C-alpha cells in the first residue's frame, strides 16, 4: 500500500515551498502571521502559559481569602464577594479552556503531529493560523471581561442558569456575556484546529507509515479531537441560547419566562464530561511516549491501549448526568449514570496497568521528563480513585459541592494540565529549541511542584469530607459552620499553594536561559525511535529536506539481536547499526 502513495518523499522538499518563504520573512510574518505548525504550536503554548500565570494568581488570591478571610491579600487587596466569585469562575474557565486545551491539544498537537507522522506541515496551514487567531481573540475577550464595569462573570465555570442568564441575579451584565462569547469563540478555534489534526493524521502519514505505526500520542490527540468535535456542538448551540437569554430576552433557561435551567446542565455536561477525556487523552499520550523512551521498553499492548482509548471515548458520552445527581433528575436515571461512571474507571485502570507493565523490567532512567511521567501516574491514580466515590449517586448527595469534589478534580486536572505538560516540555524541549534544559533546575522544580501540590489538595479532601462547602466566600460569616478545628487545614492548603508558586520561576528562568544558551542538543538526545527525532533540532521550516520513510512501529526498544537498544522508525530493515 505504501507504493500507492505519491513519490514526493524521494525528492528534496523545496520545490513545494514557493509560498513558504525561507529566511526572508520579517518579524511579523515569522512570529505572528506564520503558517508553520511549529510556530503556531509555540503561539498556543506561550499564550496558554501566560494565561496559566493569570489563573494561578487568581488561585493565590482566593486561597488567601479562604485561609485568612477579610484580610487584605498582598498584591491584590481586600477581596469582595463579587471579586471572589469572578476569581473562582475565571480561574476554572482559564485553566480548562485557555490552559489545558491550548497547551495539551493545540500546542503539542501542532508541534508533534506533522513531525511524528513525517509531514512538512498541517494539511490546512492557513486554517491552522486562523484557529490560533480566533483562540487569541477569545483569550483577549476573556481577560478584558475582568476589567469591565461590575467586573468579570461570577457564576462558576459551569455557568448554570438562571444565575448566568439573568442580569439581576449575576450582577455582571457585561462580564457574563463576554464570558459566553469568549467560550464560544474558543470552541470554534478548537473545532478548526481539530479538523486539521484529524485530517492531517488520517491522510498525511508518510510513506510506509500505517495507522498502527503512529505513536500513541498522535492517536490520543486525534481521539481527543474527535471527542471534542462530537460533544461540543450542543454546547455551542447552548451558548448561543444563553447569550440570547442574556441579550435578547429569549426564554430558553429562565423558569420565570417558561424556560428550563436543567436543559443547560444537560447541554453543558454532555460536553463537559467528554471534555475531561479530551484533555486527559493527550496527557496520557505524552506520558506513554516518555515512559517508553526512559524505560527503554516497548509499550505494553499498543493496540489494546488504542482500542481502550476509543472505548473510553465512546463511554464518556454516557456519564454526563453524574454531575447532576442533586439537580433533581430522576433517581432511576441517576442509577444508570452511576453504573456507566463506575464502568469508565475500568478502561482507565487498564491504562494505568499498561503503564506499570511497560515500566516493569525496563531499564529506567529517572531523568526529569520521566519523573513527571511517573508523577502523572501516581497523582492521577488518586484523582481516579476518588472519582469512584463521587460517581456513586448516594455518596455524591453528601459530597456534592464540597471541597472533596474540588480536591478530586484537581487531582485529575493538575496531573493532566500541569504534570503531563511539564513531562512533554522537558522531553521535547531539545527538539523545540535545539538546546538541552538544565537538569538540576528541572529536578528542583519537579520536587518543588509535586510535594506542595499534594500539600494543597490532600487537606481539601479532609475539609470536604468534614462538609466544607465550596461556594462559601467567608466561613467566618457562618459561625455555626466555621469549624475552627479545620482552620489549620485551610492554612496548610494556602501555604502549600504559595510554596508551589514560588518554585515556578525556577522553571521559567530555566526555560528561557536554556532556550538561549543551553547546551546544544543533537538530533536525538534521548535515543528515541519516533520520527520527530530524525529532523534537525530545531526542525527547519518544512521539517525535512527529504521526507522520512517509515519501516516499523514506534516502540521497538531492546529488540533481540540488535546491538543498539533502539530501532528508529525511519531506519531501513537491512541498514547497518552505525548511523
Amino acid at each position: 500500500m505504501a507504493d500507492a502513495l505519491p513519490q514526493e518523499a524521494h525528492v528534496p522538499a523545496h520545490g513545494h515551498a514557493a509560498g513558504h518563504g525561507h529566511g526572508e520573512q520579517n518579524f511579523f510574518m515569522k512570529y505572528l502571521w506564520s503558517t508553520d505548525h511549529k510556530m503556531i504550536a509555540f503561539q498556543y503554548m506561550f499564550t496558554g502559559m501566560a494565561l496559566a500565570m493569570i489563573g494561578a494568581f487568581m488561585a493565590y488570591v482566593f486561597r488567601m481569602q479562604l485561609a485568612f478571610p477579610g484580610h487584605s491579600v498582598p498584591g491584590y487587596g481586600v477581596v469582595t464577594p463579587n471579586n471572589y466569585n469572578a476569581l473562582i469562575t475565571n480561574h476554572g474557565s482559564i485553566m480548562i479552556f485557555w490552559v489545558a486545551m491550548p497547551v495539551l491539544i493545540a500546542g503539542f498537537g501542532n508541534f508533534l503531529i506533522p513531525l511524528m507522522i513525517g509531514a512538512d506541515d498541517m494539511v490546512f496551514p492557513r486554517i491552522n493560523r486562523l484557529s490560533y487567531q480566533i483562540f487569541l481573540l477569545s483569550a483577549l475577550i476573556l481577560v478584558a471581561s475582568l476589567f469591565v464595569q461590575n467586573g468579570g462573570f461570577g457564576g462558576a465555570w459551569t455557568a448554570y442558569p438562571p444565575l448566568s442568564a439573568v442580569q439581576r441575579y449575576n450582577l455582571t451584565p457585561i462580564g457574563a456575556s463576554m464570558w459566553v462569547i469568549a467560550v464560544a469563540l474558543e470552541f470554534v478555534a478548537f473545532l478548526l484546529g481539530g479538523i486539521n489534526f484529524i485530517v492531517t493524521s488520517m491522510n498525511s502519514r508518510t510513506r510506509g507509515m500505517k495507522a498502527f505505526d503512529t505513536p500513541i500520542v498522535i492517536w490520543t490527540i486525534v481521539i481527543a479531537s474527535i471527542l471534542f468535535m462530537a460533544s461540543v456542538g450542543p454546547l455551542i448551540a447552548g451558548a448561543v441560547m444563553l447569550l440570547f437569554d442574556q441579550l435578547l430576552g429569549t426564554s430558553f433557561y429562565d423558569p420565570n419566562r417558561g424556560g428550563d435551567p436543567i436543559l443547560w446542565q444537560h447541554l453543558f455536561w454532555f460536553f463537559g464530561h467528554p471534555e475531561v477525556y479530551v484533555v486527559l487523552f493527550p496527557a496520557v499520550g505524552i506520558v506513554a511516549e516518555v515512559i517508553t523512551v526512559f524505560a527503554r521498553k516497548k509499550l505494553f499492548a499498543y493496540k489494546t491501549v488504542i482500542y481502550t482509548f476509543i472505548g473510553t471515548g465512546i463511554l464518556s458520552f454516557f456519564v454526563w448526568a453524574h454531575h447532576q445527581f442533586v439537580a433533581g433528575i430522576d433517581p432511576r436515571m441517576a442509577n444508570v449514570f452511576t453504573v456507566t461512571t463506575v464502568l469508565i474507571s475500568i478502561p482507565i485502570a487498564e491504562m494505568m496497568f499498561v503503564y506499570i507493565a511497560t515500566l516493569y523490567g525496563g531499564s529506567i532512567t529517572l531523568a526529569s521528563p520521566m519523573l513527571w511521567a511517573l508523577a502523572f501516574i501516581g497523582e492521577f491514580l488518586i484523582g481516579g480513585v476518588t472519582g469512584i466515590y463521587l460517581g456513586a449517586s448516594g455518596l455524591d448527595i453528601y459530597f456534592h459541592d464540597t471541597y472533596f469534589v474540588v480536591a478530586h478534580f484537581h487531582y485529575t486536572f493538575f496531573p493532566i494540565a500541569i504534570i503531563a505538560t511539564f513531562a512533554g516540555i522537558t522531553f521535547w524541549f531539545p527538539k523545540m529549541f535545539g538546546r538541552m534544559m538544565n537538569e538540576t533546575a528541572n529536578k528542583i522544580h519537579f520536587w518543588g511542584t509535586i510535594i506542595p501540590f499534594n500539600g494543597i489538595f490532600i487537606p481539601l479532601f479532609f475539609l470536604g469530607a468534614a462538609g466544607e462547602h465550596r461556594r462559601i466566600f467567608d466561613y467566618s460569616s457562618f459561625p455555626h459552620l466555621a469549624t475552627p478545628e479545620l482552620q489549620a487545614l485551610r492554612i496548610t492548603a494556602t501555604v502549600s499553594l504559595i510554596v508551589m508558586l514560588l518554585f515556578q520561576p525556577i522553571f521559567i528562568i530555566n526555560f528561557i536561559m536554556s532556550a538561549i544558551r543551553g547546551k546544544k542538543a543533537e538530533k536525538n538526545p534521548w535515543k528515541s525511535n519516533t520520527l520527530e527525532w530524525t529532523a534537525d533540532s530545531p526542525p527547519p521550516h518544512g521539517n525535512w529536506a527529504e521526507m522520512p520513510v517509515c519501516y516499523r512501529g514506534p516502540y521497538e526498544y531492546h529488540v533481540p539481536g540488535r546491538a543498539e537498544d533502539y530501532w528508529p522508525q525511519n531506519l531501513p530493515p537491512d541498514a547497518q547499526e552505525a548511523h
Partner: protein
Amino acid sequence: LSTTRTIATQRSAMGLPTGRLAIWWVLVSEIVIFGGLLMSYVMHRIGHPEWGAEAAHTNTWLGATNTLVLLTSSLSAVLGHQAAEQGNGKKAARYLYFTFLGGLTFLIIKSFEWTAEIREGFTIQAGGFWSFYYTAAGLHAFHVLCGMLIMLWVANSARKNQDLHRVENIGIYWHFVDIVWIFLFPLLYIAK
C-alpha cells in the same frame, strides 16, 4: 493570497482527497450543533403541548416554498459537480451561481416571513416556541449565508478552471444545509 500547498495537503494515506475528508468532519461537528439544538427543542416541545397553538401562526406555505427553493438549489449544486467532474469549469460555475440565487431567494422569502411575524408581535421574546423558532431558523439561515459566500468564491475560481475539486466540497456542505432545513420545516412549521 498565494496558493500554498504543503506536501501534507497533497498526500492521501486514506485514499480520499484531503478537502473531502475535511468537509465530512466539518459536517460531523455541524450535525452535533444542530442535533443539540433540535433535541433541546423536541424535548421542550413534548413538555409544552401548548406550543402547537403558537406554531399555527407560522406560514406553512412560505415554508414549503422555501423547501422547494432549497431542494432545487441542491439539484443545481449536483449538476455543477457533474460539470466539474467533466472538467467544464465554466458550466460548473454557472450552476453554482444558480445555487447561489436559490440561497438568496430562500433568504428573501425568509425575511418577508419574519417581518410579517414580528409585525404581529411574535418576536423572539414572545415565548419559548418563538425563542427556538428564531434561533434555530436563524442559525440555519446563517449557514445558508456562509454557504452562499463560499459558493461565490468557489464559483469564481471554477470559472477559470481552478480548484474544481472544491465544487464537490461546497456541494456536500450545501446538501447538509438543505437536510437541516428538511428537519426544521416539519418541526417548526408542520407540527401544530
